[in-house]
């Protein structure tokens, strides 16, 4: 701490703001949190923040005299513009040591150039578009990538589920097209025959799914692989699936883990029983780490809302923050922080995870999840585990990670 012995103002000012006597090494690390606390993803953002706070509460003692303070900002709509402005404000005005958040891919994409310029570590809580970590050397992703979730389900569908023919259906916006490309790549590489790829309307309004499902039914594939962005879409999809009797027609439902997000699974109703999805977390995961996490969650926030993959993404993002603060002993430097996270391994509630030293992206298990009846409600049975999946998009240099990628420098 800089002191001017001739000045009598400084001690007084310190007293006035309650800083007290300057202590030896106690540093408070300021973490800027940028998430859409209002708007259509408000529930998700709240769940992520709560998970961060829960991790802090459970692990505070490990900080050894240092502390972490969260400065929360609402990034509202998914355009990326607000997130970018907030990133600047947090760095320039609030002088944060690092950034955590970015729900929607555009939020992270728009903020990446400034993150590089400002040299601040940015930990992605969601933003699943595969190529994002390539946009800045200071971005580290603790969530998942759309290719990571989708691509391995292609070979799985062919080899284990007997899907000789399949159709991919997706909501027609960037993440949906990403998922469709990833499934096509993984599925066709494994020798499956993709009969059709169906854009099922835009993300602005829940469509009547009837014509899409009717088309699928008429094309008679063994399986469909579906991605839609939100609970409202999935609930309507489940009802139309029942109405159109696709299960009775012998068509198997596969999808991304988004479709069976734990917190909203009950809203799908019994129509979704038997659906199989591939995802990186379910609250019904049967491991000691997860049981401990879920119990702590219910104890802290009540048992009305089940944690889901978003929750655990927030939880692990905070674990990463803790790792950085502990390793650097509270003195945050972006280059050292990224170095500390490269190759970092931890046993998360979602299983063993690791940050890939090369791509700064997460390596994790993908679980094959089946919707089953559990008591009065619905739950997930993990029927298989695809271990330690690396993002295939960057690995193979395909999709928007390949040549001509927006991230190509």
């Amino acid at each position, binding site marked *: 701490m800089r002191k001017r012995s001739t000045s009598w103002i400084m001690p007084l000012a310190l007293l006035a703001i309650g800083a007290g006597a300057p202590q030896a090494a106690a540093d408070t690390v300021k973490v800027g949190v940028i998430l859409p606390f209002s708007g259509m993803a408000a529930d998700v953002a709240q769940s992520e923040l709560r998970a961060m706070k829960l991790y802090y509460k459970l692990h505070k003692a490990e900080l050894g005299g240092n502390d972490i303070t969260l400065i929360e900002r609402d990034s509202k709509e998914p355009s990326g513009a607000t997130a970018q402005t907030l990133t600047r404000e947090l760095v320039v005005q609030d002088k944060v040591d690092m950034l955590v958040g970015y729900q929607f891919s555009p939020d992270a994409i728009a903020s990446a150039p400034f993150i590089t310029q400002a040299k601040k570590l940015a930990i992605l809580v969601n933003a699943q578009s595969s190529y994002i970590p390539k946009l800045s050397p200071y971005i580290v992703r603790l969530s998942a990538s759309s290719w990571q979730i989708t691509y391995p389900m292609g070979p799985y569908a062919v080899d284990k589920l007997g899907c000789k023919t399949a159709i991919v259906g997706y909501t027609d916006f960037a993440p949906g097209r990403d998922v469709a490309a990833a499934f096509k790549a993984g599925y066709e590489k494994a020798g499956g025959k993709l009969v059709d790829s169906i854009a099922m309307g835009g993300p602005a309004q829940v469509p*009547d799914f009837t014509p*899409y499902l009717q088309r699928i039914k008429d094309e008679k594939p063994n399986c469909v692989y579906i991605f839609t962005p939100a609970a409202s879409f999935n609930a309507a999809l489940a009802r139309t699936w029942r109405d159109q009797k696709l299960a009775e027609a012998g068509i198997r439902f596969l999808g991304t883990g988004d479709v069976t997000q734990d917190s909203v699974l009950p809203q799908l109703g019994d129509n979704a029983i038997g659906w199989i999805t591939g995802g990186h977390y379910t609250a019904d995961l049967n491991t000691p780490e997860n049981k401990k996490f879920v119990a702590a969650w219910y104890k802290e926030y009540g048992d009305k809302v089940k944690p889901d993959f978003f929750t655990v993404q927030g939880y692990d993002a905070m674990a990463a923050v803790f790792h950085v603060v502990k390793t650097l002993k509270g003195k945050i430097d972006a280059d050292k922080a990224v170095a500390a996270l490269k190759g970092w391994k931890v046993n998360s509630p979602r299983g063993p995870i690791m940050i890939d030293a090369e791509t700064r992206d997460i390596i994790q298990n993908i679980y094959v999840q089946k919707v089953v009846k559990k008591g009065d409600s619905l739950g997930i049975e993990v029927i298989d585990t695809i271990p330690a999946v690396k993002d295939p998009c960057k690995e193979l240099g395909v999709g928007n990670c390949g040549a001509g990628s927006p991230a190509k420098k």
Partner: protein
Amino acid sequence: MEHAVQAAVSILFDGIAYSMVLFVMAVGLSVTMGLMGVINLAHGAFAMAGGYLTVTFLGNLGLPFLPGLVLAVLAVGAASIPIEHTLYVRIYNRPHLDQVLLTIGVTLMAIAVATYAYGPSPLSIKLPAFLETQVGVFGRDFPAYRAFIIGVGVLAFLALWAGFERTMLGAKIRAAVDNRAMAEAAGVNTTRLFTLTFALGSALAALGGALAVDLVGLTPRFALQYLVLVLIVVSIGGFGTIMGAFAASLMIGVIDNAGRYLYPEGSAFFIYLVVILVLVVRPGGLFGRA
């Protein structure tokens, strides 16, 4: 060939079911816009209210399906009367911008109230057993609920058409749509007529909202999500005509459905193409006065 026929049957049946929901939601707006000249962007909020009340009556109070549905529709119609008396009367003679500002404000408040009361998550209703079966139409099986929607839509159309064309009240409304000053001079109490029509329009919106719950689900964003479609139906049908709203709904519903079935990538595009073509040829709408 057989496949093509079957696909056509599907497109027509599902498209018509979808059309009927659009018609029921839009016809109220068409009549109130034609009669009162009010751009009522809160129409979707009344539809949403119908959906939420139906969910409450069926889910929380455990009423059977049909009485619950009817009660929700009547409740929204009744509730719209004081709203018309306190808010809408003030904007009848104001510029369109004022009307848009007030009604969009009402919509945003309705969305906030619905989020507060019901939460942002999607809600659904449990259909009675007789609507969960399948019915066969030209060799294809369809959900009975869609057939029910078509029945309700056609009944609503016939009742409205007969009411407008064959009753004194209908004649008064038509007169007021054509020339309000002249109708007043002839002794028609247009103030009461406005209230009545507004309540009818809101009740129909509520019916549309309630019918749509099982098709697309219900969230607070419902109030805005389907407003564009409803406005499209009103504009290509023409203001204040039952027949216009019916024809426009059928056109939009079937073409939209066919587009989504046959060419999913361009599905959002087809209906806008139809809108452009219709309005270029007939700026006043199919059955409207240019």
